[in-house]
């Protein structure tokens, strides 16, 4: 029984952490249609900036927002110099962000090297619930992930800024005819996505060994999460997509091996996309 509860809790934790990792892509791809191949690189950069600043002596709690803002600035530069000229051209933005991924990966290698790096766990130890032991930091990140997603949902659904974005997504021409500066709104969304990717990289960094390709795993998974959940469904879509891609893997691993469970999950994702090409929650917005 405790095994099942343990797997269930593990599944929830993985779902929420993956939701956090995918949130930046959910915003950029889901709202403004930019197939951001640089999402993983932004996540990697967030992790490295956290490693660099904590290694330099900055407390982890300050290093995390600093890393997120650092990645947001990189996102701003990328958007301002390149992306803003190609918003209506998905293939071009895909190539540009792919280019960003390759260049930034090489820059990371040059600046930080290719050795594995590790950020000290700021909350070592476990939380004990009965016989179950949950890693404390992982639990905190899961709760933070949920709070971050709920905050994104609140901003999107309940604020004036969110209203402008929802209008822009539905009809850019009319939004601009109502006095909305579409270019500025696109920029803000892209930078917000970069910020979230950096934040995810920073928060996840103590949970794994950092190398220049750490973001690649999350890039592929994030695309599955966003497309499975449904574009534009920032909270519920991201969580459902993350459960299918991340959380269910733990459950499948109960009955089989980890590698086979991963295979099952990706086959399942492809089959689901065949029957729900607009995502599992499409039409619920």
């Amino acid at each position, binding site marked *: 029984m405790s095994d099942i509860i343990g797997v269930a809790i593990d599944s929830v934790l993985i779902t929420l952490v993956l939701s956090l990792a995918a949130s930046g892509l959910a915003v950029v791809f889901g709202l403004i249609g930019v197939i951001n191949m640089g999402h993983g690189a932004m996540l990697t950069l967030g992790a490295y900036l956290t490693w660099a600043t904590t290694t330099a002596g900055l407390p982890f709690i300050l290093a995390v927002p600093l890393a997120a803002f650092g990645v947001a600035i990189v996102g701003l530069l990328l958007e301002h110099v390149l992306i803003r000229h190609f918003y209506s051209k998905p293939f071009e933005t895909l190539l540009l962000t792919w280019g960003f991924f390759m260049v930034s990966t090489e820059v990371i290698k040059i600046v930080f090297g290719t050795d594995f790096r590790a950020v000290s766990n700021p909350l070592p130890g476990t939380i004990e619930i009965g016989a179950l032991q949950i890693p404390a930091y992982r639990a905190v990140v899961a709760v933070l992930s949920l709070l971050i997603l709920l905050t994104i949902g609140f901003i999107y659904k309940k604020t004036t800024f969110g*209203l*402008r974005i*929802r*209008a822009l997504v539905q*009809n850019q*021409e009319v939004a*601009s*005819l109502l006095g909305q500066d579409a270019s500025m709104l696109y920029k803000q969304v892209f930078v917000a996505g970069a910020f979230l990717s950096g934040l995810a990289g920073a928060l996840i960094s103590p949970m794994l060994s950092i190398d220049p390709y750490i973001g690649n795993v999350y890039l592929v998974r994030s695309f599955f999460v966003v497309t499975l959940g449904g574009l534009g469904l920032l909270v519920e879509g991201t969580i459902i997509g993350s459960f299918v891609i991340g959380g269910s893997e733990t459950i499948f691993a109960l009955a089989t091996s980890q590698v086979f469970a991963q295979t099952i999950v990706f086959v399942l994702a492809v089959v689901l996309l065949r029957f729900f090409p607009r995502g599992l929650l499409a039409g619920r917005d």
Partner: protein
Amino acid sequence: MGKSTLVRTISGLNIPTAGSILAGGRDITRLPPHQRSRLGIATIVQGRGIFPQLTVRENLEMGRLGAPADKPSRLNEVLGYFVRLGERLDQKAGTMSGGEQQMLAIGRGLMTHPQVMLLDEPSDGIMPVLVHQIAEILVEINRMHKLTILIVEQNVPMVFRMTDRCVIIENGSVVAEGTRADLEATDAMREYLAI
């Protein structure tokens, strides 16, 4: 240039290949649409252009967000003109009828406190009874707010009921212009307009 192209060009959605557009003596030819809107030009596009996934209230709020910051909200005024909108404030705009969507588009434009309102085919796909109602409201808005309304329309009776001055454009050329009386004065023109 076609009639809809004219509206799109004035609103900034199309860039003219020649000529210039002046608003209050200022050259706005190169201004993007959002800046023209801020100068007081409200455009109601053909097909209405409501945000279907937003509620009626949110659509109207988008109009308010486009108004100058020092202007008060016109929500009550708009709901006074279009009573049906008040009954459907929390309904998704995409679920309303064509006529109600047109009322919403006009009401939302009014929320921006415009000095000029451009309407592109407001009777398109709307029941005749609602066309009449919308025309009456537009006349009242024009009278109450001293709002200049430029309307592109193929429904001649509607145009004649509303307008002070008409310009007939066909295939990009001006065929005739004048008041309703001017245009109805000759048999040839009455036949041309099928009235």
